[in-house]
């Protein structure tokens, strides 16, 4: 089991390097499309540990194919140079009728399945690696269809799931979807995410994803109860923090993760890639 931290901006470079040197993280998940103007050689030399790639703005479900072909070509240059342990992307709706959504929307897992599967297969083929797709932090009940959707998609397209445990907790709290509904996905995937969330501004019983604070007690409990299914040879879990980048708070959460997985005090080991 390897624990990582997300790297999204050059301003976080000193912190990330410190987390590596302190043995708090074993790998770095780079939000790769934020760094496409940085030379691959410079990025490859950035960290004294393995890296993974997370793609944010390919918008592969809705971008035109010429753009995606070009973007995939540039991403492959970084994949070849850095050999990430995994490549992941987002299964989201970024726009509606040509108008950008600033808070991204959830797809309709039932009516859009065939179109999504077709585009996922094509995008994965252009990336040239197995692609891991992240589950959404649902507010509306459509999120209850997500586990069956991901199970079918992985079976029929060969993509993997980047299973975000805290997103599943959000969906549980908002929609009542049992955490047990994700059992088969947790048992089979090797890629995990986790982050903090908060209550919505106007109704505290509705939860929204935020990446701005420490993990909730519900997320901790979920992690501890599923440890035996998460922990597999080569498994990775990335702790995401995008706001309130506070060293002590982040360190406390990373130490808690290491405690849950029995890694406190262990030095870093080589992350086992799952290159396809």
């Amino acid at each position: 089991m390897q624990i990582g931290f997300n790297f999204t901006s050059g301003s976080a470079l000193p912190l990330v390097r410190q987390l590596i040197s302190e043995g708090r993280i074993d790998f770095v998940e780079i939000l790769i499309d934020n760094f496409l103007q940085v030379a691959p050689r410079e990025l490859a030399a950035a960290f004294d540990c393995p890296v993974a790639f997370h793609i944010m703005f390919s918008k592969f479900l809705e971008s035109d194919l010429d753009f995606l072909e070009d973007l995939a070509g540039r991403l492959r240059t970084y994949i070849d140079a850095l050999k990430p342990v995994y490549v992941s992307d987002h299964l989201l709706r970024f726009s509606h009728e040509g108008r950008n959504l600033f808070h991204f929307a959830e797809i309709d897992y039932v009516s859009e399945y065939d179109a999504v599967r077709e585009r996922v297969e094509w995008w994965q083929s252009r990336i040239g690696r197995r692609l891991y797709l992240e589950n959404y932090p649902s507010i509306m009940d459509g999120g209850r269809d997500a586990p069956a959707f991901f199970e079918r998609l992985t079976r029929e397209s060969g993509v993997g799931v980047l299973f975000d445990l805290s997103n599943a907790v959000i969906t549980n709290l908002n929609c009542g979807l049992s955490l047990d509904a994700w059992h088969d996905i947790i048992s089979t995937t090797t890629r995990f995410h986790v982050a903090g969330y908060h209550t919505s501004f106007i109704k505290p019983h509705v939860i929204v994803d935020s990446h701005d604070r420490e993990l909730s007690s519900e997320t901790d409990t979920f992690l501890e109860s599923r440890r035996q299914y998460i922990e597999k040879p080569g498994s990775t879990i990335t702790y995401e923090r995008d706001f309130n980048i506070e060293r002590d708070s982040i360190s406390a959460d990373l130490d808690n993760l290491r405690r849950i997985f029995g890694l406190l005090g262990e030095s870093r080991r080589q992350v086992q890639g799952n290159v396809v």
Partner: protein
Amino acid sequence: MPLIRPSRIRIDSELLDALSAPASQQNYADDVRAFVRIDHSIRTYWHTLFDVCPGLLRLSGPDGQSVFRPFMAWAAEQRLSFGWSYYLWVYIWLRQSEFRGLLDSDLRLSLMAASAARWATFDRSKAAAIAIGCMEVQGLVCGFKPCALDASMTVEYQELEKAIASPDGQFGFFTSSGPEIDRFPGWYAIPK
């Protein structure tokens, strides 16, 4: 443990039309999760505007609503895409609004800088830099994507050594494949 309440609206996709329409939020007042979902989306548009350009609050008052709500309604009529040019269209709308007499060069520059920054942060084309011009401004507001690992995106105001033609519209732009703005290929109209 939060209380889960039934929702009349089942899937997120049913809310797509409302996610950028503040006026439609009240239509979902009896559906708590749909109401919150729309609220969260609308707040993101609000914060993207006023957190980045707090000078707009001087026009609208502290809640921003007298600028935000009519602009968003106009943006829907115009089918604006809410791309990197979001802030430039706010300025274009302000010039035809009741606030037109209150606009000044600082506010205009802050909106141009915000658009340059948004391009430098979210654009995924091969271009490395953008220059935004305005018919009322001599120089260019330029945004640069980070080209080193420890760098962040930057925005600069650049004076011109030689005068160039003004854009045809209120604003125009061009991009550069390299990390410097060192040639003028002509103006492009800002995307809707």
